[in-house]
């Protein structure tokens, strides 16, 4: 809810710039959306209204801003009442609820303002002010605002509801299994005991977990293996008690956590004393505004003495190598640093078990190693650890046991030694690597970079980079987080302009061309596909880019068919993009750019968060694109995938190219 209010606040503040924006109030629209999505009780609805009122009052330039403190809670209540009354009867209930809430909020605001003006509390706006003229003047504005807000809420409701998995089917259904005997007093009780455990999501047609029977003793480090969509995350949610206490859906079988039935725990706070979870989205787990505060929030809730809190804070900062970052705000940290902070904050709560759900998915080698080093220390301290990881080899040193989940079923349960004895590392493609500068090239380069320097404020991100990229090349730019890889490629389509030096793309000076013009020659696929996907069907999503560059609609349909087939999404053109798996969304993002037929295709970390199988599928697509003559440039921190697929590898460190090598006489492994 707070997040939606933050968006509302940003938009409200920015819309102040636009005189015509008097016809929308994003704060109202977004708190209505939140109420519609989460359907809070009356007390929480009033709370939402009060917080919205405080934020509105502080960024409003209306005649009497505190009136928001009355108008917004009333609006929130009306929204809740209207939505509750209409949601089962009409499909446009969000529209009705938001429209009504905005009207009530708006007219309440006006009524309060009139009362304070009439009572002489504040002065009237102008000499000719009368209550009648005031109401006549503002009424159309309120009605227009209500219409605009209703449209915004309804438009946002459709994707939002799908994301939150709420809907008519399976809603409010949860079948809870019978309670197990309490064995929590037994010091040797296992950390987790699943017995015939199955779970189906509210909108699911088949179980996400089926008949899981598994016992994990205390102090064990378990690696959870499986492909994307196999059920690993659902397993983690189950183990953390989240499915039982927070999710709707159907559950069978039993689950005990540290000897106590999962249903025997009062709430998630109660479970949180035993089990901590680190999710893959590092940013969303950092609630406070400095690293130190984040860790303190865990320590201060343990009833420790102040001196002990201070000592443990220092210990935790040292344990997680965060001492130097203690005063930094979260949004200024790298992905690896954020994950270390969220791990530290979780550990600060003093839990006996930590579950990490792909917590290292977006991290480079060094950052992953630092997390693994912390886990090794935790293991030595006797903590139970469950880790979901796409790259098992990185956890070989600490894993005791590996379980494999496939289609929601536990298909293998073996010791780490047994697992790694048969685990096959992917092989590198054949061919000799040699210095690119020693290779004589024919023709003109598609991308030519000369002495490129880029600075952010006083920080130098690129320090004199030079390189040429030719048609048909599949180039991987590798390096640790912050080495300048993404900064470099953003110059290729004009999102960044050189501080000095030149960048030429397909004969155009990238420093002078508009981004929209360069986009026709150099397409960029961002790391997170959700950054770009916003339409309600795959087809519309692909049409968006093509329409922007003026492709004929008939030609566009042909391209959609071809490109979707190429990326393995044929026949999926009417699907809702955000309902697809991460790998499919990534392939769709690539398809959207490829359909625009740029000569140069740039991909920022295209395989991040994907299992090896899906990552290989993406890389096969990139190889076929380079085979078709495109210059394909990928930024990656995943050296293993780069070695297996790229023909040319450029390594960057601290804003400079430290090596540039090309494979000759090579072929696929």
């Amino acid at each position, binding site marked *: 809810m*707070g*997040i939606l209010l*933050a968006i509302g*606040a940003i938009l409200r*503040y920015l819309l102040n*710039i*636009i005189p*015509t924006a008097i016809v929308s109030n994003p704060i109202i629209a*977004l708190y209505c959306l939140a109420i519609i999505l989460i359907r809070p009780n009356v007390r929480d609805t009033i*709370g*939402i209204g009060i*917080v919205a009122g405080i*934020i509105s*009052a502080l*960024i409003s*330039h209306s005649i009497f801003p505190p009136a928001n403190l009355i108008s917004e809670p009333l609006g929130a209540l009306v929204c809740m009442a209207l939505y509750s009354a209409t949601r089962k009867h009409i499909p446009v209930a969000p529209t009705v609820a938001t429209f009504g809430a905005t009207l009530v909020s708006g007219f309440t605001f006006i009524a309060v303002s009139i009362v304070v003006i009439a009572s002489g*509390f*504040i002065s009237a*706006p*102008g000499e000719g002010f009368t209550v009648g003229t005031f109401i006549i003047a503002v009424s159309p504005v309120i009605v227009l605002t209500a219409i605009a807000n209703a449209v*915004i809420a309804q*438009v*946002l409701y459709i*994707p939002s509801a799908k994301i*939150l998995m709420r809907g008519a089917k399976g809603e409010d259904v949860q079948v809870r299994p019978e309670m197990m005997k309490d064995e929590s007093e037994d010091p040797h009780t296992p950390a987790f005991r699943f017995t015939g455990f199955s779970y189906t999501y509210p909108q699911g047609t088949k179980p996400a977990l089926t008949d899981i029977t598994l016992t994990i003793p205390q102090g064990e480090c378990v690696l959870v293996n499986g492909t994307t969509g196999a059920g690993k995350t659902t397993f983690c949610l189950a183990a953390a008690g989240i499915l039982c206490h927070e999710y709707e859906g159907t559950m069978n079988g039993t689950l005990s956590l540290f000897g106590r039935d999962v249903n025997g725990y009062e709430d*998630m*706070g109660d*479970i*949180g004393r035993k*089990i901590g979870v680190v999710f893959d*989205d590092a*940013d*969303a787990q950092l*609630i*406070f*505004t400095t690293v130190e*505060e984040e860790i*303190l*929030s865990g*320590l*201060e*809730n343990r*009833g420790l003495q102040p001196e002990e*809190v201070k000592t443990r804070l220092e210990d935790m900062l040292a344990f997680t190598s965060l001492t130097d970052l203690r005063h930094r705000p979260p*949004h200024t940290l790298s992905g690896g640093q954020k994950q270390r902070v969220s791990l530290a904050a*979780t550990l600060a*709560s003093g839990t006996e078990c930590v579950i990490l759900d792909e917590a290292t998915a977006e991290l480079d080698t060094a950052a992953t190693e630092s997390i693994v080093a912390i886990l090794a220390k935790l293991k030595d301290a006797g903590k139970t650890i469950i880790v979901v990881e796409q790259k098992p080899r990185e956890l070989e040193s600490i894993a005791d046991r590996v379980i494999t989940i496939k289609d929601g079923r536990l298909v293998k349960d073996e010791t780490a030694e047994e697992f790694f004895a048969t685990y096959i590392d992917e092989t590198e493609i054949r061919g000799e690597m040699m210095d690119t500068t020693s290779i004589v090239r024919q023709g003109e380069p598609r991308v030519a970079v000369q002495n490129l320097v880029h600075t952010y404020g006083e920080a130098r991100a690129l320090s004199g980079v030079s390189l040429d990229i030719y048609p048909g090349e599949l180039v991987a730019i590798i390096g640790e987080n912050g080495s300048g890889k993404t900064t470099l490629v953003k110059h290729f389509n004009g*999102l960044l302009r050189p501080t000095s030096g030149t960048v030429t793309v397909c004969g155009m000076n990238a420093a002078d061309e508009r981004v*929209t013009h360069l*986009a026709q020659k150099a397409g960029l696929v961002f790391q997170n596909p*959700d*950054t770009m996907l*916003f339409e309600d069907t795959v087809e519309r999503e692909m049409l*968006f*880019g093509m329409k*922007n*560059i003026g492709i004929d609609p008939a030609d566009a349909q042909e391209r959609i068919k071809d490109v979707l087939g190429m990326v393995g999404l044929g026949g999926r053109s009417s699907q809702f993009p*955000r309902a697809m798996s991460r790998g499919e969304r990534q392939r769709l993002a690539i398809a959207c*750019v490829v359909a*625009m037929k740029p000569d140069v295709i740039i991909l920022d970390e295209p395989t991040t968060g994907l299992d090896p199988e899906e990552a290989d599928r993406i890389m096969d697509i990139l190889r076929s694109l380079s085979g078709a003559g495109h210059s394909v440039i990928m930024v990656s921190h995943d050296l293993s995938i780069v070695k297996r697929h790229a023909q040319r590898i450029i390594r960057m460190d601290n804003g400079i190219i430290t090596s540039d090598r090309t494979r000759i006489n090579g072929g696929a492994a």
Partner: protein
Amino acid sequence: MAEILQYKRIDGVFHRMNALTKICFLLVVIVLAILSTNPLVLAGIILLILILAVAGRFGRELLTQVPMLIFLSAGLILLTVLTMQSGDVIGYLIPVGMPFIGGHIPITTGALTFAAILSLRFFVMLFAFQLMIISTQPRDLVTALQKLHLPVDYSLMLLIAIRFIPSLQLEGKRIQEAQRARAYNPGGGVRGKVKELTPIIIPLVSNALGKANVLGLTIDLRGLRTMSRTPSLDRPFNTPDYLLAVLIVALVIAGAAVILG
């Protein structure tokens, strides 16, 4: 909107104060700003806040907001001139000399004064809020709000709204870049800004909802909703608190004197 509403670690006098003192100051300043219709009084309050910010060593942080606020005020003045005629006419938005359409939309002293009051009030409120947010750790703010009997869920909601403003600004920028990289050009001006909203706001809200799930679980698992903090870590009332309290009383007296004539 860069760098708005964020706590900044600075070794300054405001950072050492108890959050309750700063909340009282914020409330008094807001009430004074609302009650006053004198642009000079409002300008005086802005000056006072800026002096306090300089004393607290974060004057620069407040001043970086000024260009944006001036831009906002320009829009507000234009809107007021378009919709309000009061007092003497001092000119026309469409100059008299223009053929056919000249001499329309009068600019009146009443409209300008009213717009100036609203703008200055907006400056006051945002600066006062910034003064509190920049100098108060959210943890202290939540504790202070609880002492004022605001339920912890409400305090956390406010905390999260404030905390995520910079993160979502960055996310919005990334989304904007991603759409521009797809050759999206909504055009300039008001129409462009409005057209730009759909491809940006839908991913922004969708991604935020994805975060909300993880955020809610994290709050519950860390037991933050109980907020049973180790009590003696509370920031004690010190000399700066008492000095600000004196200033608050002085402001109340001065405000009463001005308003009551």
